Protein backbone atom coordinates (compact mmCIF):
# COMPACT_ATOMS: atom_id res chain seq x y z
CA UNK A 1 0.00 0.00 0.00
CA UNK A 2 1.12 3.52 -0.71
CA UNK A 3 1.46 5.86 2.28
CA UNK A 4 -1.39 8.24 2.97
CA UNK A 5 0.72 11.10 1.72
CA UNK A 6 0.27 9.83 -1.84
CA UNK A 7 -3.49 9.58 -1.84
CA UNK A 8 -4.09 13.11 -3.01
CA UNK A 9 -7.09 13.69 -5.25
CA UNK A 10 -5.25 16.30 -7.21
CA UNK A 11 -1.70 15.28 -7.91
CA UNK A 12 0.00 11.99 -8.41
CA UNK A 13 3.63 11.14 -7.83
CA UNK A 14 5.93 8.95 -9.93
CA UNK A 15 5.38 5.81 -7.88
CA UNK A 16 1.64 6.08 -8.53
CA UNK A 17 2.08 7.05 -12.17
CA UNK A 18 3.96 3.84 -13.03
CA UNK A 19 1.05 1.81 -11.65
CA UNK A 20 -1.41 3.66 -13.88
CA UNK A 21 0.43 3.11 -17.16
CA UNK A 22 -1.53 0.03 -18.24
CA UNK A 23 -4.89 1.52 -17.27
CA UNK A 24 -3.87 4.59 -19.27
CA UNK A 25 -2.83 2.61 -22.34
CA UNK A 26 -5.97 0.47 -22.10
CA UNK A 27 -8.17 3.55 -21.93
CA UNK A 28 -9.47 2.56 -18.50
CA UNK A 29 -8.75 5.75 -16.56
CA UNK A 30 -11.59 8.11 -15.76
CA UNK A 31 -11.46 11.45 -17.51
CA UNK A 32 -10.17 13.06 -14.30
CA UNK A 33 -7.66 10.26 -13.80
CA UNK A 34 -6.41 10.65 -17.33
CA UNK A 35 -5.99 14.40 -16.84
CA UNK A 36 -4.02 13.85 -13.63
CA UNK A 37 -1.83 11.26 -15.29
CA UNK A 38 -1.10 13.45 -18.29
CA UNK A 39 -0.48 16.48 -16.08
CA UNK A 40 2.10 14.45 -14.19
CA UNK A 41 3.80 13.34 -17.40
CA UNK A 42 3.94 16.91 -18.65
CA UNK A 43 6.11 17.81 -15.68
CA UNK A 44 8.09 14.59 -15.33
CA UNK A 45 10.64 13.53 -17.95
CA UNK A 46 11.38 10.29 -16.08
CA UNK A 47 7.79 9.09 -16.16
CA UNK A 48 7.54 10.23 -19.80
CA UNK A 49 10.54 8.03 -20.50
CA UNK A 50 8.96 5.23 -18.48
CA UNK A 51 5.77 5.38 -20.57
CA UNK A 52 7.85 5.36 -23.76
CA UNK A 53 9.64 2.25 -22.48
CA UNK A 54 6.37 0.49 -21.74
CA UNK A 55 5.13 1.31 -25.25
CA UNK A 56 8.43 0.08 -26.71
CA UNK A 57 8.19 -3.11 -24.65
CA UNK A 58 4.71 -3.83 -26.01
CA UNK A 59 5.84 -3.09 -29.55
CA UNK A 60 8.91 -5.32 -29.26
CA UNK A 61 6.86 -8.14 -27.77
CA UNK A 62 4.53 -7.83 -30.75
CA UNK A 63 7.41 -8.45 -33.14
CA UNK A 64 8.10 -11.90 -31.68
CA UNK A 65 6.78 -14.29 -34.24
CA UNK A 66 5.18 -17.59 -33.57
CA UNK A 67 7.53 -20.49 -34.02
CA UNK A 68 6.93 -22.27 -37.27
CA UNK A 69 5.39 -25.69 -37.22
CA UNK A 70 7.97 -28.43 -37.89
CA UNK A 71 7.15 -30.78 -40.77
CA UNK A 72 6.81 -33.99 -38.69
CA UNK A 73 4.37 -32.22 -36.36
CA UNK A 74 2.32 -31.11 -39.33
CA UNK A 75 2.17 -34.70 -40.55
CA UNK A 76 0.78 -35.78 -37.17
CA UNK A 77 -2.08 -33.37 -37.63
CA UNK A 78 -2.78 -34.61 -41.14
CA UNK A 79 -2.97 -38.12 -39.65
CA UNK A 80 -5.27 -36.86 -36.95
CA UNK A 81 -7.56 -35.30 -39.55
CA UNK A 82 -7.65 -38.43 -41.69
CA UNK A 83 -8.38 -40.65 -38.69
CA UNK A 84 -11.20 -38.37 -37.71
CA UNK A 85 -12.62 -38.41 -41.26
CA UNK A 86 -12.45 -42.17 -41.27
CA UNK A 87 -14.17 -42.41 -37.87
CA UNK A 88 -16.81 -39.91 -38.86
CA UNK A 89 -17.81 -42.12 -41.78
CA UNK A 90 -18.51 -39.98 -44.80
CA UNK A 91 -17.12 -36.90 -43.04
CA UNK A 92 -18.65 -33.49 -42.46
CA UNK A 93 -21.66 -32.57 -44.48
Amino acid at each position, binding site marked *: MLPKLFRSRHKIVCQQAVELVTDYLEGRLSRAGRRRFEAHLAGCPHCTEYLAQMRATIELTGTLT*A*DDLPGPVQDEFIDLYRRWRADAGDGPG
Partner: protein
Amino acid sequence: MDQDPDADLLGRLRAGDEQAFVILVRRHHAAMLRLACGYVPSVAVAEEVVQDTWLGVLRGLGGFEGRSSFRTWLLRILVNRARTTGARERRSVPVGDPEPAVDPSRFDGTGHWAAPPERWVEEADRRLDAAKLAGRLRSAIDDLPDRQREVVTLRDIEGLSSEEVCSVLEISEGNQRVLLHRGRSRLRQALETEFGGA
Protein backbone atom coordinates in the same frame (compact mmCIF):
# COMPACT_ATOMS: atom_id res chain seq x y z
CA MET B 1 -18.41 -12.52 -36.43
CA ASP B 2 -18.15 -10.66 -39.74
CA GLN B 3 -14.42 -10.12 -39.50
CA ASP B 4 -13.25 -13.46 -38.18
CA PRO B 5 -10.02 -14.03 -40.12
CA ASP B 6 -10.59 -17.78 -39.89
CA ALA B 7 -14.09 -17.71 -41.35
CA ASP B 8 -13.09 -18.74 -44.88
CA LEU B 9 -10.96 -21.61 -43.69
CA LEU B 10 -13.69 -22.71 -41.34
CA GLY B 11 -16.11 -22.85 -44.24
CA ARG B 12 -13.67 -24.93 -46.24
CA LEU B 13 -13.05 -27.20 -43.28
CA ARG B 14 -16.76 -27.79 -42.91
CA ALA B 15 -16.84 -28.75 -46.56
CA GLY B 16 -14.19 -31.39 -45.85
CA ASP B 17 -11.07 -29.57 -47.09
CA GLU B 18 -8.03 -31.19 -45.45
CA GLN B 19 -5.73 -28.37 -46.57
CA ALA B 20 -7.89 -25.85 -44.70
CA PHE B 21 -7.37 -27.90 -41.55
CA VAL B 22 -3.60 -27.86 -42.01
CA ILE B 23 -3.59 -24.09 -42.52
CA LEU B 24 -5.66 -23.58 -39.37
CA VAL B 25 -3.34 -25.83 -37.38
CA ARG B 26 -0.28 -23.96 -38.63
CA ARG B 27 -1.85 -20.62 -37.86
CA HIS B 28 -2.75 -21.45 -34.27
CA HIS B 29 -0.29 -24.12 -33.21
CA ALA B 30 2.38 -21.97 -31.55
CA ALA B 31 -0.13 -20.00 -29.49
CA MET B 32 -1.88 -23.18 -28.42
CA LEU B 33 1.32 -24.92 -27.44
CA ARG B 34 2.58 -21.95 -25.45
CA LEU B 35 -0.73 -21.61 -23.68
CA ALA B 36 -0.99 -25.32 -22.88
CA CYS B 37 2.54 -25.32 -21.48
CA GLY B 38 1.33 -23.01 -18.71
CA TYR B 39 -0.92 -25.76 -17.36
CA VAL B 40 0.83 -29.06 -17.87
CA PRO B 41 4.21 -30.36 -16.69
CA SER B 42 5.92 -30.95 -20.04
CA VAL B 43 5.92 -29.95 -23.69
CA ALA B 44 5.05 -33.53 -24.62
CA VAL B 45 1.88 -33.37 -22.54
CA ALA B 46 1.11 -29.92 -23.97
CA GLU B 47 1.38 -31.36 -27.48
CA GLU B 48 -1.14 -34.05 -26.53
CA VAL B 49 -3.48 -31.40 -25.22
CA VAL B 50 -3.18 -29.50 -28.51
CA GLN B 51 -3.94 -32.61 -30.55
CA ASP B 52 -6.84 -33.47 -28.29
CA THR B 53 -8.15 -29.93 -28.72
CA TRP B 54 -8.13 -30.19 -32.52
CA LEU B 55 -9.97 -33.46 -32.31
CA GLY B 56 -12.54 -31.72 -30.12
CA VAL B 57 -12.75 -28.92 -32.69
CA LEU B 58 -13.38 -31.35 -35.53
CA ARG B 59 -16.05 -33.15 -33.54
CA GLY B 60 -17.65 -29.92 -32.38
CA LEU B 61 -17.57 -28.06 -35.69
CA GLY B 62 -21.29 -28.46 -36.19
CA GLY B 63 -21.99 -26.86 -32.84
CA PHE B 64 -19.84 -23.78 -33.37
CA GLU B 65 -22.21 -20.93 -34.10
CA GLY B 66 -19.72 -18.14 -34.50
CA ARG B 67 -20.87 -16.14 -31.50
CA SER B 68 -17.20 -15.70 -30.63
CA SER B 69 -14.29 -15.75 -33.06
CA PHE B 70 -13.00 -19.16 -34.04
CA ARG B 71 -9.75 -18.44 -32.23
CA THR B 72 -11.52 -17.60 -28.97
CA TRP B 73 -13.57 -20.79 -29.23
CA LEU B 74 -10.48 -22.83 -30.05
CA LEU B 75 -8.40 -21.44 -27.19
CA ARG B 76 -11.23 -21.91 -24.71
CA ILE B 77 -11.43 -25.57 -25.61
CA LEU B 78 -7.67 -25.75 -25.22
CA VAL B 79 -7.63 -24.10 -21.79
CA ASN B 80 -10.43 -26.34 -20.54
CA ARG B 81 -8.59 -29.45 -21.66
CA ALA B 82 -5.26 -28.21 -20.36
CA ARG B 83 -6.81 -27.48 -16.96
CA THR B 84 -8.36 -30.90 -16.81
CA THR B 85 -5.06 -32.51 -17.80
CA GLY B 86 -2.80 -30.33 -15.69
CA ALA B 87 -1.89 -31.40 -12.21
CA ARG B 88 -1.92 -27.82 -11.02
CA GLU B 89 -5.18 -26.14 -10.19
CA ARG B 90 -4.43 -22.45 -10.13
CA ARG B 91 -7.77 -20.84 -10.69
CA SER B 92 -8.36 -20.07 -7.06
CA VAL B 93 -5.48 -17.57 -7.07
CA PRO B 94 -5.88 -15.81 -10.40
CA VAL B 95 -3.91 -12.71 -9.56
CA GLY B 96 -1.73 -13.48 -6.56
CA ASP B 97 0.01 -11.14 -4.19
CA PRO B 98 0.40 -7.42 -4.83
CA GLU B 99 3.41 -6.70 -6.94
CA PRO B 100 4.72 -3.20 -7.68
CA ALA B 101 5.50 -2.30 -11.30
CA VAL B 102 8.84 -0.84 -10.22
CA ASP B 103 11.04 -1.79 -7.27
CA PRO B 104 9.97 0.58 -4.45
CA SER B 105 13.62 1.24 -3.58
CA ARG B 106 13.89 3.25 -6.80
CA PHE B 107 11.62 5.96 -5.35
CA ASP B 108 12.38 8.42 -2.56
CA GLY B 109 10.22 8.86 0.54
CA THR B 110 7.82 11.13 -1.35
CA GLY B 111 7.24 8.71 -4.22
CA HIS B 112 9.43 10.51 -6.74
CA TRP B 113 12.09 8.72 -8.76
CA ALA B 114 15.36 8.35 -6.87
CA ALA B 115 16.83 6.02 -9.50
CA PRO B 116 14.96 7.00 -12.69
CA PRO B 117 14.58 4.62 -15.63
CA GLU B 118 17.76 4.17 -17.59
CA ARG B 119 17.28 4.99 -21.23
CA TRP B 120 17.27 2.15 -23.74
CA VAL B 121 14.50 2.78 -26.27
CA GLU B 122 16.60 4.80 -28.72
CA GLU B 123 19.41 2.35 -28.25
CA ALA B 124 17.11 -0.53 -29.10
CA ASP B 125 16.04 1.24 -32.29
CA ARG B 126 19.45 2.40 -33.34
CA ARG B 127 22.02 -0.17 -32.62
CA LEU B 128 20.79 -3.27 -30.84
CA ASP B 129 20.96 -6.56 -32.56
CA ALA B 130 17.35 -7.52 -33.22
CA ALA B 131 18.02 -11.18 -32.59
CA LYS B 132 19.66 -10.45 -29.25
CA LEU B 133 16.74 -8.29 -28.22
CA ALA B 134 14.21 -10.94 -29.25
CA GLY B 135 16.17 -13.60 -27.38
CA ARG B 136 16.29 -11.58 -24.18
CA LEU B 137 12.61 -10.75 -24.44
CA ARG B 138 11.63 -14.36 -25.05
CA SER B 139 13.51 -15.56 -22.00
CA ALA B 140 11.96 -12.75 -19.92
CA ILE B 141 8.52 -13.90 -21.08
CA ASP B 142 9.41 -17.49 -20.17
CA ASP B 143 10.37 -16.27 -16.68
CA LEU B 144 7.02 -14.56 -16.03
CA PRO B 145 4.65 -16.19 -13.54
CA ASP B 146 2.26 -18.47 -15.47
CA ARG B 147 -0.79 -16.24 -15.39
CA GLN B 148 1.13 -13.15 -16.44
CA ARG B 149 2.81 -15.08 -19.24
CA GLU B 150 -0.54 -16.31 -20.53
CA VAL B 151 -2.07 -12.85 -20.61
CA VAL B 152 1.00 -11.13 -22.11
CA THR B 153 1.39 -13.86 -24.73
CA LEU B 154 -2.23 -13.72 -25.78
CA ARG B 155 -2.48 -9.94 -25.79
CA ASP B 156 0.90 -8.77 -27.01
CA ILE B 157 2.21 -11.64 -29.13
CA GLU B 158 -0.98 -13.21 -30.43
CA GLY B 159 -2.85 -9.92 -30.55
CA LEU B 160 -6.08 -11.00 -28.85
CA SER B 161 -8.36 -8.29 -27.48
CA SER B 162 -8.84 -7.99 -23.73
CA GLU B 163 -12.37 -9.41 -24.16
CA GLU B 164 -11.00 -12.44 -25.98
CA VAL B 165 -8.36 -13.02 -23.31
CA CYS B 166 -10.98 -12.86 -20.55
CA SER B 167 -13.11 -15.33 -22.43
CA VAL B 168 -10.25 -17.73 -23.15
CA LEU B 169 -8.80 -17.71 -19.63
CA GLU B 170 -12.14 -17.22 -17.86
CA ILE B 171 -10.90 -14.31 -15.80
CA SER B 172 -12.45 -10.94 -15.12
CA GLU B 173 -11.48 -7.85 -17.09
CA GLY B 174 -9.97 -6.36 -13.94
CA ASN B 175 -7.79 -9.39 -13.29
CA GLN B 176 -6.78 -9.48 -16.93
CA ARG B 177 -5.58 -5.90 -16.68
CA VAL B 178 -3.68 -6.48 -13.42
CA LEU B 179 -1.87 -9.49 -14.91
CA LEU B 180 -1.12 -7.59 -18.11
CA HIS B 181 0.24 -4.66 -16.11
CA ARG B 182 2.51 -6.82 -13.98
CA GLY B 183 3.73 -8.86 -16.91
CA ARG B 184 4.52 -5.88 -19.10
CA SER B 185 6.16 -4.10 -16.16
CA ARG B 186 8.46 -7.06 -15.60
CA LEU B 187 9.37 -7.21 -19.28
CA ARG B 188 10.18 -3.50 -19.31
CA GLN B 189 12.43 -4.00 -16.30
CA ALA B 190 14.16 -6.93 -17.96
CA LEU B 191 14.91 -4.82 -21.04
CA GLU B 192 16.16 -1.94 -18.90
CA THR B 193 18.41 -4.29 -16.96
CA GLU B 194 19.78 -5.76 -20.16
CA PHE B 195 20.12 -2.67 -22.31
CA GLY B 196 19.88 0.37 -20.03
CA GLY B 197 22.67 2.78 -19.20
CA ALA B 198 24.24 2.57 -22.65
